[in-house]
Every structure is written in structure tokens, then in C-alpha cells.
């Protein structure tokens, strides 16, 4: 421990104490026996979860909707990302490169949930808003990854085709694309995995899927049904994790 470490430590402690003071959180009241009993009462109402056949069918539909939102959103993003990646890797001159990079950065830096809240205003409540929100954010992420892949792809095959008289589009499809398509697919699958998790919670702002069901059941004080949805979310994430781990193990 030297002086700089001590300064960092003191600053961090000051930040923590300052934060609790600023938020006016009464730590002792929050962790009192009374508060614990209240919390216990609140969370006890979530059990047992609602496992009636009727509600399980609804939860199943919500799960399918979540998967559909993530799938359609990711495919749209892959298509748009591809279109924007072409100018972003410098194919159409420096101006197009700067403009398209700015668009990608903008799309990426706004979180999915903020996009979802905006889309709910644009197209109304429901899964379509969630799909658009995921597509917008993911286009930014995937577009940048695609552009980097294209930049790093070997230029010789496409160049050879073009020098032999091929149209630039044909040179791209037969000279460049085969070299990058595997990487593109890998990136898209990777983002799909993240998007399934995201699609499950986007609904809390009204963008469809399991999140919206959770939000509605909590608003109606149907805690048992809320618990069913939370379990469905957990199950979905566990399955996706296992599937992606299995897939990765097989590909290696």
C-alpha cells in the first residue's frame, strides 16, 4: 500500500458514504427486523407460483413471443448491419465511411431498453416495438463488427475477379463474401443469444414478450403469476446458455 492506494481507498469510501447520504437511505431502517419481516411478507406472496394449465399455456406463448422478437430483431439487424457495413468499411469513399460509422455508433450507444421505450411511442405497445428496438441497437453492434471483418478480409480474391473483368458486385459476392460469411454468421448467432435475454426483459416498458406479462401481472398484484413468468425467464436463459455451450463445444 503506497500513498496513491490510500488516496484511492479514501476517495472510494467517501463516495460510498456520500452516495448513501445523498440518496437519504436510512441503512439501519432498511436492514431492521421490521423491514425484513415486511420484505418476507412481500416475497412470500409470490409462492406458490401459478402452475395452472391455462396460465402455463400463456407463459409458453410469451416465451415463444420472446424468442420470435429476438430472432426477427436479430435477422433484421443482420440485414441492415450488412447494408451499413459496406459504406462503413470505406468501400464508397471517406464521406460515406464517416457518416455510416456515425450512424452505427449512434444506434449502438443507445441501450435497447431506451430504444424500446421510444418504439412503444412510435408503434404502440406490443412485440413489434420490442423487435424494432432490438433491431436498431443490434444493427449498430453488428454493423460495426461486420465492417471490421470486411476491413480485415483479404482484398486479393475480389481484386483478381475485378481485374479479370467482373462487375464489382459479382467480385464482392464471389471474392469477398465467402471469406467473411462464417464470421458474419458467428457474430449474428452470438448477438442472437444476447438478444434472447434482452427480449425477455424489454417488455417491462411495454415491448411484448415475457417482460410485458411480468409487468402486467405485477401491476395487477398477481404475484403467483408473476413468479411463473420469472421462472419461465430463468428457464429460457438456462436453456439458451446450455444450447450455446453445447454448440460451441461441437464447433471447436
Amino acid at each position, binding site marked *: 500500500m503506497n500513498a496513491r492506494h490510500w488516496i484511492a481507498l479514501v476517495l472510494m469510501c467517501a463516495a*460510498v458514504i456520500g452516495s*448513501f447520504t445523498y440518496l437519504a*437511505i436510512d441503512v439501519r431502517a432498511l436492514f431492521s427486523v421490521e423491514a425484513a419481516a415486511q420484505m418476507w411478507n412481500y416475497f412470500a406472496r409470490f409462492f406458490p407460483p401459478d402452475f395452472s394449465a391455462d396460465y402455463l399455456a400463456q407463459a409458453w406463448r410469451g416465451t415463444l413471443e420472446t424468442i420470435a422478437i429476438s*430472432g426477427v430483431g436479430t435477422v433484421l439487424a443482420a440485414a441492415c448491419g450488412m447494408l451499413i457495413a459496406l459504406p462503413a468499411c470505406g468501400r464508397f469513399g471517406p464521406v460515406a465511411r464517416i457518416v455510416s460509422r456515425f450512424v452505427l455508433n449512434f444506434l449502438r450507444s443507445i441501450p435497447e431498453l431506451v430504444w424500446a421505450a421510444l418504439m412503444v411511442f412510435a408503434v404502440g405497445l406490443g412485440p413489434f416495438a420490442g423487435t424494432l428496438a432490438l433491431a436498431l441497437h443490434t444493427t449498430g453492434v453488428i454493423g460495426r463488427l461486420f465492417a471490421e471483418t470486411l476491413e480485415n478480409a483479404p482484398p486479393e480474391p475480389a481484386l483478381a475477379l475485378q481485374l479479370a473483368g467482373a462487375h464489382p458486385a459479382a467480385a464482392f459476392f464471389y471474392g469477398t463474401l465467402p471469406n467473411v460469411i462464417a464470421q458474419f454468421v458467428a457474430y449474428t448467432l452470438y448477438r442472437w443469444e444476447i438478444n434472447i435475454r434482452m427480449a425477455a*426483459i424489454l417488455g417491462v416498458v411495454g415491448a411484448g414478450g415475457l417482460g410485458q406479462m411480468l409487468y402486467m401481472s405485477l401491476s395487477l398484484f398477481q404475484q403467483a403469476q408473476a413468479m411463473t413468468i420469472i421462472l419461465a425467464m430463468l428457464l429460457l436463459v438456462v436453456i439458451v446458455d446450455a444450447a450455446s455451450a453445447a454448440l460451441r463445444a461441437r464447433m471447436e
Partner: protein
Amino acid sequence: MARDPAALPRFVLTALIVVLLIPGFKLTEFEPGVLFDTRNRETIGRFLGTFFPLALSADFLQLVIKSTIETLAIATAGMALALAIAAPLSLLVTRSLSISRIGPGPGLWSGRVLRTPVRLALMLCRSVPEIVWALLFVRAVGLGPTAGVLAIGITYGGMLGKVYAEIFESGDTRPTVALLESGSGHLPAFLYGMLPVALPEIVSYSVYRWECAIRASVIMGFVGAGGLGMQMELSMRMLSGGEVSTMLLVFLLLVMLADGISAALRRVIE
């Protein structure tokens, strides 16, 4: 004209994706027409039109600064809570710190029996997304930053607990084991054998998580857990785009600032 040898597999793959997507489009109520519907286009156009110019009135800026500080405070207090949860639990689940594992003696089974539920509890804490915790706590303790602090504390407590234990195990555990075998207690063995090895990694991971907590606390505001996100949601509801775009700008600056601070902190530690 020569045929493309890869045409058939490509066609099959594309057809498969399209067939799988059709029910997806139906389930997501995919109707791009909604976006271009005249009445809707006018509403969207009007809302988007209000995004510029930015809202920069003194009153509003004051409110933005206040909620930005609140967001930072939620992230920091939440991380402190997460640390308070993760530190003891990570010690409990670290196997190298177990005395009963060294040799036959009392406590072998009780140690195992204790570690499993703690590990499960940590898993439960981090598997439920923070925004769901926030949604639950907003209903338990009311709207405002307290719900955000609790949500970050629990989710990140679960993550930190697991990662800390992994860091402890992945370092050189021989000093710890040597101390334990020569009769030292758990805590001295941890403080003198394990912590010095693991500390830099622990600190740098925690700082990185603090950065994530800032982003998370903005997002949790959308379900009422205080801070910049809550203000952003209110402005959206009132369709005042200028305020939304100002706050989005502040959010981006905040993320960049947190990035800078965390890089600087990590440099100090190394």
C-alpha cells in the same frame, strides 16, 4: 454459363431461415405499415421534431444534474451493498479456504452442506436480471432510488460473489493451504495467503462492474427506480423530445466519464 457450385446449399439455408422466420413475423405482430401509416407518421414526426433543439433551460438542466448525481449515487451505493453481500459469501464458497478438506476430521460434511445453498443463493441473485429485481423492489419499498440500490446490490452481489470465489481459486493457493495446514484460522489464512495474490484482479473487476452498474441504474430508472432513467421516462411520457435528447446526451457523457474514471482507478491499482 458456369453454375455456382455453392448455390444449392446457400439456397437451402436461406429457405430454411425464411421458413423459420414466418411464424416469427406473425408472433411479433410485424407490421411495418404501422410506421408509415399517415396518422401515425404525423405523430411520430411531431415527436421526433421536438428532439431538436435540445432542452437547455436552467431549471431543466438543474433537474438533469440532480438526477445524474442520483444515478451515480445509486450505482455507488448499490456496489457497496453488492460488496457487503459478496465478500463474506465468496469466502464461504471458496473451497481452498476450507479447513475440513485438509484431512479427516469433524466438519467435512457440514462444510459441504453449507457451501451448496450459498452457491445456489448467489446463482439465484445473479440469474434474475437487475431490471426484474428493480421491478419487484419498486413494489416492495416504493418508487425511488432505494429500489435501484437494492436491485444492483442483489444482482451484482451474486455476480461478484461468484467471480471473487473464482479469482481466489484461480490464483496461487499454496500459501493459503500452507497457512491452514500449519494451524492458522480461516481469516488470517485468507488475509495473508490469498488476498495479496488476488487483490489487483478483484479491484479491477469490481471497478469494471461499477461502470456497468451506472448503465444499469439508468436503465432501471425506466421502471421507477430513480435517477436519470426515471426522468427520461417521464419526459417521454410528456412527449417532450428535447428533454429526452438532452438526457440521452448526458447519459452518453456519463458512460464516457465512468469509462475514464475506471481506467484511471485501474492504473492506480496496477
